[in-house]
């Protein structure tokens, strides 16, 4: 029964029914339409269209229709017919070589989660997405099929659908040939070499596989033209390029070029410069009339985007206050093959820093940060200073160097003022060392704490313990180690800005070691026999502005007192007695490594120090010559001689006299350079030299403070101020006799590549080649007679644990006293930084 509806008339809804709903509740659907019983609407009319549209936009239905089922006067019954879109239940992605991470990526990027509605659009976009995904990696023959199968509940009603995506990656497309046409100036080979991403198939070149990707080829088109442009062919262009599909695995590229003419630089004029003279600008530009035209170089000399600290024209202005300066090169005339340039400069006004603020310091106090800033209110704007400030804030070790950033908050051209805000992110800077283990006949426990951002003034302020008083930039380390027969305690404190006025660093340290005689037969310590060492040092280091302001001048006084109580050590010929080691150390060092102290990528670090004791023998009127002669004679005594015991006593007495106050001087040089090779690959070049000498040859060089070469270089349990020099590929201290040597040198090359430089853990891998040796005096010294080694290693730096690492070194030479090369040697590196 068909009744006519009067389109100009309002009807009252009597009843609404929903048909076709499977998963949706009828009432829910009705509620959603917003229509209810008793509503008066035009049929057909705008209201119904709106409702349909609204439902459609939900993306839940594949069909929506309203039917009028009954009309009685003004009253109508409505039927809403819907077809629900199938719901997604589960996605399975299958395919050879489709990695788990890729699968996750596909699911995430296409929103393929349970409950999603399976629309045609979804299927198509997913398919395209996957094909493109693999295209990016050079798979041009990827085939994707998507099937959905119904999932029914127990009553047999389709509840949702499972989706199976099968991916056939196919073979990666390789470039069989790249043909050039129209090239006369450069050979095909040269042009192919300039293409970095798109390479021909070549078995020998295993490090870079041949593949073809749109992106890579796009880049290479640029680099092809760059090749021409940097050689005077500024008009060079690619007329067309064709990708020919040879078969499923191979494609060929045909590139048709037009080289154009070779051009030369003509006159270069500077316009608009008032601050710098033409001469100054020309010197930095470094391009002369008559040179082969090189558009790339010209751009680099004006603004080198690859290096923020480049010596280019833009930085000349940026480093001298002209924040808003703009420099544009303009071709003004082309005369045959010569191009005249005008370099138009808009200098604009000078800028000064106004408000300079720091944000993000949740732990470190303002004064610790502001004192390091090189950009202060009222100073002329300088990009170099901003870069340097960032570098130095990174080196404090309190902030994540990778997240430091300067933000220009307000640049006011009318007043020439710029507000700068440094954003910092705090990182953990305390380290804890807790060890326990059996060694040397008993339990050995170690507790070490090092707080790199301590606040000493709050040490008695209980409320600042959250969990420790932090934020004043002081460094406090406490370490205690104990076993049944020895204990050692040490404490050190460093204040980088003594008094807060000048960057004068005060460091103090104190240590105390008690070693008891360990009786191996009774397996216990004999408390009546002991060897104690008590020492301390105070040092001042000052940043100086000359020769340049990366220099640090340092002074320190150190003192150690050795006390032997019926205790024989290899160091002394006497078992009862004492020795004092008072020395003054003076040093100068320069460090401009940047930026991350854990992973420097540029700059250098070198230092020269001299450690001197007072020349006691010059004024204490002891005749060391006589003592020395007497000792030499006594030492010749045969052990069978009845006088042997007495003679030994006398030797002890002489040595006690010699070592009452140690007398020596020690000179050390150390230099390290960091060079960025490509991208993040860094070369570390290091050279070291050390020398220990005596003022008075008769008194001789003491057995202390000597050099021991070989091994991991970790400062072992040392009583005698010895210096352990790292030389990997050999066992610890295997390249020096047991008494140590007085001269050493070392050369090392290390290549580093970072795996990650995240805040939680910095990890890098390294490969090294090094050589070094120690010598007994200048007569032996030969800097070319080195023990050589090479190897690879890994370093992990975590803020809470410090540095952990492992190296495998191969020693090419025999160890001391050996005859065969040493071969592989593993080294574990703990705690030693950088």
């Amino acid at each position, binding site marked *: 029964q068909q009744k006519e509806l009067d389109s100009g008339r309002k009807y009252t809804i009597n009843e609404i029914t929903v048909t076709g709903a499977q998963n949706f509740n009828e009432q829910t659907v009705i509620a959603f339409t917003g229509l209810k019983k008793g509503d008066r609407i035009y049929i057909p009319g705008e209201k119904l269209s709106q409702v349909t549209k609204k439902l459609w936009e939900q993306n839940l239905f594949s069909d929506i229709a309203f039917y009028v089922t009954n009309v009685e006067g003004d009253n109508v019954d409505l039927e809403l017919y819907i077809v629900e879109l199938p719901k997604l239940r589960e996605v399975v992605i299958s395919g050879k070589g489709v990695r788990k991470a890729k699968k996750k990526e596909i699911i995430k990027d296409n929103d393929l989660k349970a409950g999603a509605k399976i629309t045609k659009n979804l299927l198509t976009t997913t398919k395209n997405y996957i094909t493109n995904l693999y295209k990016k990696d050079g798979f041009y023959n990827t085939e994707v099929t998507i099937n959905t199968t119904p999932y029914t509940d127990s009553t047999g009603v389709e509840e949702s659908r499972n989706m199976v995506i099968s991916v056939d990656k196919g073979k990666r497309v390789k470039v069989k040939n790249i043909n050039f046409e129209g090239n006369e100036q450069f050979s095909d080979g040269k042009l192919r070499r300039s293409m970095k991403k798109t390479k021909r198939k070549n078995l020998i070149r295993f490090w870079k596989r041949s593949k073809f990707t749109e992106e890579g080829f796009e880049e290479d088109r640029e680099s092809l033209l760059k090749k021409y442009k940097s050689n005077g062919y500024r008009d060079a262009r690619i007329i067309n390029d064709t990708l020919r599909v040879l078969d499923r695995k191979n494609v060929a590229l045909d590139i048709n070029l037009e080289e154009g003419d070779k051009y030369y630089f003509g006159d270069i004029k500077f316009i608009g410069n008032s601050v710098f003279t033409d001469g100054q600008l020309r010197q930095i530009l470094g391009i002369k009339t008559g040179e082969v035209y090189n558009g790339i170089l010209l751009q680099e000399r004006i603004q080198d985007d690859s290096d923020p600290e480049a010596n280019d024209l833009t930085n000349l202005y940026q480093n001298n206050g002209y924040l808003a300066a703009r420099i544009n090169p303009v071709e003004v005339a082309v005369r045959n093959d010569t191009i005249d340039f005008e370099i138009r400069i808009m200098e604009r006004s000078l800028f000064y820093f*106004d*408000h300079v603020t*720091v*944000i*993000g*310091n*949740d*732990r*470190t*106090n*303002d*004064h610790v940060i*502001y*004192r390091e800033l090189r950009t*202060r*209110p*009222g*100073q002329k704007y300088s990009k170099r200073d901003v870069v340097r400030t960032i570098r130095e804030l990174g080196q404090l070790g309190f902030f994540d160097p990778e997240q430091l950033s300067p933000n220009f908050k307000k640049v006011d051209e009318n007043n020439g003022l710029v507000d700068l805000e440094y954003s910092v992110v705090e990182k953990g800077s305390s380290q804890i060392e807790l060890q326990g283990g059996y060694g040397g006949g008993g339990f050995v426990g170690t507790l070490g704490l090092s707080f790199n951002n301590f606040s000493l003034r709050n040490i008695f302020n209980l409320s600042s313990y959250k969990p420790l008083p932090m*934020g004043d930039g002081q460094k406090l380390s406490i370490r205690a180690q104990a076993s049944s027969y020895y204990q050692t305690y040490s404490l050190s404190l460093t204040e980088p800005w003594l008094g*807060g*006025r*000048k960057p004068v660093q005060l460091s103090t340290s104190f240590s105390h070691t008690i070693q008891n005689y360990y009786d191996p037969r009774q397996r216990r310590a004999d408390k009546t026999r002991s060897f104690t060492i008590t020492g301390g040092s105070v040092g001042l280091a000052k940043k100086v502005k000359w020769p340049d302001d990366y220099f640090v001048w340092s002074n320190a006084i150190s003192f150690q007192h050795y006390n032997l109580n019926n205790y024989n050590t290899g160091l002394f010929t006497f078992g009862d007695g004492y020795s004092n080691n008072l020395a003054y150390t003076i040093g100068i060092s320069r460090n401009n490594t940047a930026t991350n102290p854990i992973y420097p990528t540029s700059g250098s670090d070198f230092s020269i120090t001299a450690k001197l004791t007072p020349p006691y023998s010059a004024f204490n009127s002891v005749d060391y010559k006589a003592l020395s002669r007497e000792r030499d004679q006594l030492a010749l005594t045969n052990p069978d001689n009845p006088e042997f015991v007495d003679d030994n006593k006398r030797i002890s007495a002489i040595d006690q006299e010699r070592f009452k106050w140690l007398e020596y001087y020690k000179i050390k040089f150390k230099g390290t350079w960091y060079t960025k090779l490509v991208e993040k690959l860094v070369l570390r070049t290091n050279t070291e030299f050390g020398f220990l000498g005596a003022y008075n040859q008769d008194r001789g060089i003491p057995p202390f403070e000597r050099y021991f070469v070989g091994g991991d270089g970790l400062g072992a349990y040392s009583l005698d101020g010895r210096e352990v020099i790292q030389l990997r590929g050999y066992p610890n201290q295997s390249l020096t006799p047991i008494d140590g040597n007085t001269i050493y040198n070392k050369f090392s090359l290390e290549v580093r590549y970072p795996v990650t430089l995240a805040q939680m853990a910095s990890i890098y891998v390294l490969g090294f080649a090094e050589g070094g040796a120690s010598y007994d005096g200048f007569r032996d010294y030969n800097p070319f007679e080195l023990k050589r080694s090479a190897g690879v290693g890994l370093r992990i730096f975590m803020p809470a644990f410090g540095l952990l690492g492992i190296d495998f070194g191969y020693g090419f030479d025999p160890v001391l006293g050996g005859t065969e090369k040493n071969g592989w040697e593993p080294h574990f590196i703990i705690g030693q930084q950088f």
Partner: protein
Amino acid sequence: CSQYQQVLRKDDMGKKYALADSLYKMEKYKKSLKLMEQLVPVYRGKPQGEKLMFIYANTYYNLEDYYLAGYQFERFAQAYPQSDSIEVASFKAAKSFYQLSPRYSLDQKDTDKGLEKLQEFINQYPNSEKRTEANALVAELRGKLEKKQYEVAKQYLRVEDYKAAIDAFDNFITDNPGSSYRKDAFYGRFVAAYKLAINSIPVLVQERLRTAKGYYNNFIKYYKDTDLAPEALELYQDIESRIVPLETEPNT
């Protein structure tokens, strides 16, 4: 205590609610909180929810977890805009942010947020009995921000970067009219200018002494009878003794 454990484990929400409430009244907040964490998702949107959400937020506040307290009070204020407790909740939300504000020498983003929230409260409830307290808190936070900026300027003086100090004090004076550090800032600017002058190369000394004199006049204009005036006067007299009258200055 075992009864508490039983209730905590069972599913009886009514008992949990009653126990949570009584523990809250007994100020056993930690225990109460554990129960409330289970109750909150269940009662959200129900009639009991209003009271529960309020004491839930307040428990965090009493436990000095101001970060969550602020968040929960704000949620409460959004969810129950008609509630009788809305004013208290808004105030406590703002006060939570006030509590989060760290010492002046650290990053002050929480202070800024506290100020914003307190100001919102004052604007919304101009007749609230908490207004006096809110105003006091605002003043305290403002004072903190002022101290921060003042101390930075003072540090430039301390590290003998006089030019930066003058600029920073200048900025302080412009940015903070009516600050309690204003006197010290005027004085600091004068001292910085004085020290800059006497440590300058000879050609610049006279000009800079005159600048310093100008800053002295600025200082004395506002703070003639303050404790810093005698010290300032001493420096001023030194300036006077060094300054060469313009006429008699030799032509260079």
